[in-house]
């Protein structure tokens, strides 16, 4: 059985400029212990997708249609109370900016203990003790001293470790990480990625990783889903995606990424801008930017079709 199953999810924002289709018919599946990376440009709906799994779609957004089955239960119809009992205990989240996702007036120990107090009815003293243990687990040196410090007294990398400790506090089965390393230095990024890898094994976690950085996803995910304009355009096992990307957008993204192994001279960016999600083009959503566009592409939006083993592509002429 899959741990998380998203079926035809539609999340729209009902703003003043009209309806923004941030997530428009996304279907995904995540097996226990496996990890999925969502790749996409800013504004393609990947963060909204992550937040809807937790039932935290911000105003004026709404889940319009679809299902999010988590351990067999549909998140979409759940009451606030039910959602709260799952959040932080069965599933948790690691945010992009460690500094701003920690409460500046609480010590880090207090914040890590928060989830334990909320879900496990642990007495405060015990929760604080456990928080120090967690800090040791995520590799914070002098955890005992650091525990009583405030977030601003820690470095960015240490802060992100605290955020990860918070996410792991109640032994969740899935962690959603939205750009977990984007705000960090490159060296610290590598450390945090390493930590997430270790934690994944140690806690038998499923990871739902969101990033615009291909390198981060390759490092951590078994499967990669590429999102464009609210839809998945390609999804498949990581090694396959790297070797033979089938969607023109995916191959364009690969060409715009720096790798150490390939000496190619100039990088080629993906020309143009992603479409406005409030007024999408007719036909294929990538058509205006596609180097391989044909007349058919401007009329119909292709469906996500099977391309290889566990490999799906949304393109009329995938190759």
């Amino acid at each position, binding site marked *: 059985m899959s741990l998380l199953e998203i079926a035809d999810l539609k999340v729209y924002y009902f703003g003043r400029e009209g309806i923004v289709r941030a997530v428009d018919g996304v279907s995904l599946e995540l097996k226990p212990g496996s990890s999925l990376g969502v790749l996409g440009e800013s504004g393609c709906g990947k963060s909204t997708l992550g937040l809807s799994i937790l039932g935290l779609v911000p105003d004026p957004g709404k889940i319009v249609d679809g299902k999010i089955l988590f351990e067999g239960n549909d998140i979409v119809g759940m009451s606030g109370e039910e959602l709260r009992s799952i959040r932080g205990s069965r599933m948790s989240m690691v945010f992009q900016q460690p500094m701003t996702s920690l*409460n500046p007036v609480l010590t880090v120990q207090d914040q890590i203990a928060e989830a334990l107090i909320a879900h496990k009815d642990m007495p405060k003293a015990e929760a604080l003790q456990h928080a120090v243990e967690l800090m040791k687990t995520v590799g914070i040196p002098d955890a005992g001293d650091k525990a009583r410090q405030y977030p601003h007294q820690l470095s960015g990398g240490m802060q992100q470790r605290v955020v990860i400790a918070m996410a792991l506090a109640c032994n969740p089965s899935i962690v959603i990480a939205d750009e977990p390393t984007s705000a960090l230095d490159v060296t610290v990024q590598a450390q945090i990625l390493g930590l997430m890898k270790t934690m994944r094994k140690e806690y038998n976690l499923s990871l739902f990783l969101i990033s615009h950085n291909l390198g981060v996803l390759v490092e951590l995910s078994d499967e990669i889903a590429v999102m464009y304009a609210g839809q998945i355009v390609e999804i498949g096992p990581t090694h396959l995606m790297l070797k033979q990307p089938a969607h023109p957008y995916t191959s364009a993204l690969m060409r715009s990424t720096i790798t150490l192994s390939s000496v190619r001279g100039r990088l080629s960016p993906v020309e143009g801008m992603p479409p406005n999600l409030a007024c999408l083009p007719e036909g294929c959503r990538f058509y205006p930017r596609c180097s391989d566009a044909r007349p058919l592409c401007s009329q119909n939006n292709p469906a996500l079709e099977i391309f290889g083993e566990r490999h799906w592509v949304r393109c009329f002429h995938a190759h």
Partner: protein
Amino acid sequence: MTVLGFLRDRASQSIRLIGHNKVALTGTIIIVGILLMILLADVIAPYDPEKQFTRLVPPCSEYLLGTDRLGRDVTSRLIYGGRASLMVAVVSVTIAMAVGVPIGLISGYFGKTLDNVLMRIMDVIFSLPALLLAITIVAILGPGLLNAAVAVGVSYVPRFARITRGPVMSVKERPYVEAARAIGASSRRIVFKYVLPNASSPIIIQTTLALSSAILAEAAISYLGLGVQPPTPSWGSMLNEAKLYLFIAPWLSISPGIAIVFTVLGLNLLGDGLRDVFDPRLRRRL
């Protein structure tokens, strides 16, 4: 750790932190000095504040701050007068905070229709001049010190509601509030542990400002005969009586004036200092 032990720890930590902050320390010393003076009035006041001697004697060794138009010792009246002034200030601001801060919190955090309704009610109260409103309330409740305090308190409610609502609206959008939701914290916990503490700086400042202006409001209400009833002294009423003798007996205005200025200064310093002390980002490392 017991609740009492926890509170004791917090209290001793706060005292240590205030000791390290010069501004807060100065404010504390001034306020504690004034409080001691008021509490020990019976011991340190040289005369009965209502006993009459020679009229309008300038400051001398016998009457340190002189005597007023009815021959009462100004020093003694100043010491006793602080009781009425500070009582009104503290009671009224406590009422204003107790009502205004929750209204601002609810309004800012939940927003939408509730926010609209609450804020329009606040606007109605705000649109009336605070003093006029307070006088009307005292006129309804009847004159007296406690009624004056209640009246000033009610008229200050919108200030606290407004000053709380703004920062709450901005703080509730911060990522750490979303992070708190993502770990399953309840709304109550989020409001009291995440939103309110991060929105408290302007409330603390507003408190000290309101305390100072409440002292002055008490003066005006007492002047109109709706607050402290003569011959009981208060700084405000002393100042108002002294006004008529500004040229022939200036010492009558100077001493209560200085008392008010010092109290307000002490409160403002304390407020500034407290804000720094309770905000870990502004706190110096010990």
